[in-house]
Structure formats: structure tokens, C-alpha cells
């Protein structure tokens, strides 16, 4: 396995190569997560795997952050509102250098820094504790208003899933953000369309989702992007730069990413059973080589 660090990615001039490197980091994070979930016998695979690419893009090519200064008041904020994808956040933070990767295997252990759901006081780099769904947009709005009032002008990114958007509070936050129009608040929808109990359109249909945000006075990206294609993710943030006039125009902004729950392991993809089922030996034996093969394919592109 190839070791690539953030400095190499930042220094890479060839955009295609840079994006391939980020895709590689995302796939490596998936592999880390799968191994942790198998070893610990607890945690959520589906929503972690679907969030990997957008999350890694943020940490390697978007957020203004320094892992050595996780509490820097000018840093950009990231809220994983779908907190059950905690393992992907932990793997990404470890990959980005916030803490030693060995720590990942203490996930959900007593006395571990890595709580079942993200805890901002336990884990360096976690900007907000989440777990109960539906908090992220409101908290992110507060952060974005603080950014603006203090003139520190940091950005706040909130990743939500369908479950978050089922919650009433999300719509209170969406309505309030429409009113206060913060300049640097961005909601990223990890739209994998599968919930714990089954397909999202059967549990609680969200469509027409983009229209809903637009009706609440949000600036909505012109299309849904592919949450597993780095070129498409890159394009979505180019849209954001343009739409926000690099932070000068009023937000809030929403980008919807089409994604697959359990992405990377075919037999687990888009199956609600893999929302939070423990990864047993049999399934791990099938899944690990597949993720490794995916990683090797990406490595060849770097």
C-alpha cells in the first residue's frame, strides 16, 4: 500500500493526478473502516462508505485546516450531521494526520478517544458532536453566523443524510438559514437513498429535494453530482466558488451528491441491512479483497 500524505496532494500540480490521490485516500479510509468494523463487531458501514469520497475531498482539497491546530479559531468547520458515519470521519482524520492511525482500532472501546458517535471533546478534529440526527444544519448556521459576525470568515460545511432530513429540526434550520442568509454555510447531502429500515423513498420520500431547498431560499447547485467521482466532486466545488463569488455572495448553499450506501463492496451496496450490521468473518473475507482490489486500481492511476 502506497503512503501518500496531505503535503504531496497539496503540492500536486496535475489536477487529475491530485484527484486520483484523493480517491486513493478515500478508498484507503474505506478499507480502514471495514477492518475496524470487522475487528470491533460494531459500527455502521453503509453510510460511512457512501460518505468517503466527498469527506476526503473536503479534508485534502477544500477545508482551511491544520491538523496540528485543531482548535484554531479561523479554521473551516465540518459537521458530520449523520454521526453514525463516525468511523469514516475518524479514518479520514487519522489519514489527514490529526491522530495516530493505530487509534482507529480502539473505536468504541471503554476509555477510547473514538466514541460510538463523534464527540468534539474526545477526538481532535471533530468540530461538533453528533449522533442524534438533525442537529447539523442548525449548529452549522450558528457557526456560519459567528464566522460572519466575527469577520473571521471561515466556511462551515455540514454533511447530512436522508435520516437527518427526516428530522423536523433540519427544516427549522433550513428555514432559518434562508432568512439569515449566511455567506459561508454549505450543506452537502450524501444522498445514498437507503435508510436503516429500507429504501428512502419508501421510508420517507424527500423528493423533490433540490426544489425544497430552493423553496426555502437556498442557492442550490444546478445538478446532483456523483459522490463517488472525484471529477464530479471537483466540479461541484468549482460551482460553489463561482456561485459564492469566493465567499462574497450570500448563501446558504446546498450540493446534492448521488452516492451508494456501502460503496466499494458490491454485495453490501444499496442494501439497508448494511446500515449498521456487524461485519462478520464471512462477509469480511468477501469484502476486504474487493476493497483492496479497488485500492490497487486507484494506485495504478497515481
Amino acid at each position, binding site marked *: 500500500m502506497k503512503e501518500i500524505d496531505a503535503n504531496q496532494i497539496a503540492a500536486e500540480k496535475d489536477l487529475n493526478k491530485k484527484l486520483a490521490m484523493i480517491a486513493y485516500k478515500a478508498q484507503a479510509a474505506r478499507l480502514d473502516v471495514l477492518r475496524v468494523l470487522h475487528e470491533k463487531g460494531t459500527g455502521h458501514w453503509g453510510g460511512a462508505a457512501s460518505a468517503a469520497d466527498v469527506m476526503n475531498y473536503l479534508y485534502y482539497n477544500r477545508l482551511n485546516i491544520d491538523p496540528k491546530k485543531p482548535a484554531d479559531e479561523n479554521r473551516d468547520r465540518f459537521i458530520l450531521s449523520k454521526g453514525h458515519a463516525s468511523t469514516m470521519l475518524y479514518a479520514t482524520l487519522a489519514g489527514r494526520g490529526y491522530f495516530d492511525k493505530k487509534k482507529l482500532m480502539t473505536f468504541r472501546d471503554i476509555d477510547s478517544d473514538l466514541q460510538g458517535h463523534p464527540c468534539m471533546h474526545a477526538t481532535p478534529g471533530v468540530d*461538533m458532536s453528533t449522533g442524534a440526527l438533525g*442537529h447539523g444544519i442548525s449548529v452549522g448556521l450558528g457557526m456560519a453566523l*459567528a464566522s460572519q459576525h466575527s469577520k473571521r470568515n471561515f466556511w462551515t460545511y455540514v454533511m447530512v443524510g436522508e435520516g437527518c432530513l427526516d428530522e423536523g429540526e433540519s427544516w427549522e434550520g433550513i428555514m*432559518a438559514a434562508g432568512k439569515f442568509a449566511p455567506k459561508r454555510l454549505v450543506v452537502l447531502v450524501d444522498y445514498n437513498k437507503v435508510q436503516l429500515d429500507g429504501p428512502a423513498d419508501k421510508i420517507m420520500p424527500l423528493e423533490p429535494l433540490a426544489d425544497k431547498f430552493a423553496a426555502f431560499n437556498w442557492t442550490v447547485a444546478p445538478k446532483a453530482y456523483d459522490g463517488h467521482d472525484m471529477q464530479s466532486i471537483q466540479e461541484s466545488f468549482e460551482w460553489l466558488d463561482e456561485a459564492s463569488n469566493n465567499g462574497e455572495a450570500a448563501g446558504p448553499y446546498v450540493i446534492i451528491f448521488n452516492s451508494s450506501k456501502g460503496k466499494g463492496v458490491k454485495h453490501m451496496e444499496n442494501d439497508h441491512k448494511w446500515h449498521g450490521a456487524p461485519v462478520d468473518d464471512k462477509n469480511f473475507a468477501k469484502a476486504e479483497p474487493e476493497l483492496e482490489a479497488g485500492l490497487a486500481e486507484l494506485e495504478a492511476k497515481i
Partner: protein
Amino acid sequence: MKSADRTQTANTANTGITVNKEHAAAMRDVFGKHLVEMGKTHPELMVLDADVSGSTRTGWFGDAYPERFYNVGVAEANMVDVAAGLATAGYHPVISTFSIFLALKGTDQIRNVLCYNCLPVIIAGGYGGISDSFDGASHHALTDLAIMRAFPNMTVLSPGDGQEVKDALEEAMKINGPVYIRLSRNETPLLFEGRESLKVGKARKIAEYDEADLSIAVSGIPTYMAVEAQQQLKAEGITAELLEISSIKPIDAEALQASAKKSGKLLTVEEHNIRGGVGSACAEAVSREVPCLIDMIGIEDTFTESGPYDKLMTKYGISVDAIVKRAKKLAEK
């Protein structure tokens, strides 16, 4: 309340704290004015209200500092979390609406975001107890203290008069974590002007003796009633120590235990369901160290009805007469 009572002035046995009903203020007015004052010296102070800023008086802060005031509409859950976001970035927000809605519509946000992350947000619960009397059961906050004090990292304050509202706000600004302050709608006698300030974790000893027939622990609006009742009991030869519990969490267990030890009898008085409120908090504090008979005056686990505030308080057994009666009964046991 009889009109004759309005001019009556009572002096307690040994602290000189008096009840003068002519000298009164509504907690919400004191709160609104003091927020504006604090705004001058605390640039980190932000105020959020959920479309009741005219009632809670946070609108006055909004008039003075429009750039630090957010009216978020009738969406309490969102208000709590927006304040949380502000608090993570150096601000010290005050969130304000009726206490019943904060405690019940913002519960998840208060527990999982404010308390879990220990964020400095002042939760100003307006119209506490049955003070929004005419609006009836839907607007009566009788479980807020039980809910708030069950959350780790939370400080719970229930001032006994307008002066203590100012004290509580000043204390809360010094705390790097969530603080719930219970306020009231209506005019209530000013008891503690010029006195020692309310202190987090400390009971106020209003009447103290070497030997006593019982102890009374009171919190919130009924404090002035307990001051009068203590005086009446004294006149009838019953010596009651009187402690005011404005800091419900942390509670002054030491003071409560020391007082309860003298007689082994404690009467608690609160404007809250006796299940889980101040009486429960006192019982938890005392019973670990001191064998003690405890009686509790408060709302007896029932939904309340509409009506004039004073009459409603009397109907639900919170009055000077009720305190005197229950104190005598307890003293005789």
C-alpha cells in the same frame, strides 16, 4: 391576595429580610433591562428569541444591539442549536422563550449539544411555573427543573426575586457551560436588594438558629411566601430555619444537611411538580447523610388550569397559609 396584605411588612427573625409588596418587580423586566446593561460590557453576548421577545423582554436587547439579536421564529430546537454553533466560536448566547417550550421542544438539543459539549449558553426560561397563569396547562412549566437538573454539565438557577435575576445572569456569564435560569412573568416582591449576591452552589440562609423545630427550603417565586410564613410561625412559637435554594444544581448539600440535622424535619416549597423538582433535589442532598422527615409543597403531579396567578398558586397549595399549616404539621410529627 387580600388588599390588606399588600402593605404588610414582615421582618424575619435574624436576617432582616423583608417582604414589601409595594416594592416589587417582574423578573422578566429585570432580565430584559439587565441584558441590555450586560451588552455594553460583554461583546460576546448574543441573544436569540423564538418570537416571544416582546413577552420575555429580550426585544429590548434586540433594539439596543440589532446585530447581536436573532429572532428565529417559533422553532425552539433550531434556536438551541444555532446558539450552540455561536458558542463554539467564542460567543456567549442567551436563548429565550417560555420555559415550557425550551424544556420540552429543545430537550434533545439542550442535552445532546449544549450539555454534552458543555457549551456556554444561558437558557433563560421565561414564564416559569404557572406564572403564565391565564394561558393554562399548555403554558405552565412544571417539569423544567426536573429535566434540566438531570443533564450532566448543566447549572440550574431559580432566582427568588428580581435582584437574584441580575445576580444569576452575572454568575452565568462566568460559567463556561450551559446554565438554565428560571424566570417568572409577574411582579413579585424584591427581597434581596443590597444583600449578598446569589452564588452558584450556595443556599441563602434567611433564618438560622442554634436549635429549630424544622427547616424550610424554598426556591423561586414562593420565597417571599416562605419569608412571611417563617415570621408567622415564629410569632406562634415555632422556630423554622429558612434556606433559599436559588442554586438547584449544584445544590448546597452541606447547608441543607447542617440545617436538617437540627430538627430532623424539612419542608420544601416550590412552584413545580414535586416529582423531580426542588423537593426531590433537597431530599437527594439531605438523605445521604441525615435521617430526616421531608414534606414537599408544590404541584402534586397534576395538570393545572387557567386563572389569576395568586389564586391559582393558592388553589394548588402554594401560599403563606399552606406553608404555615404544613410546617406546623411537620413540626408536630
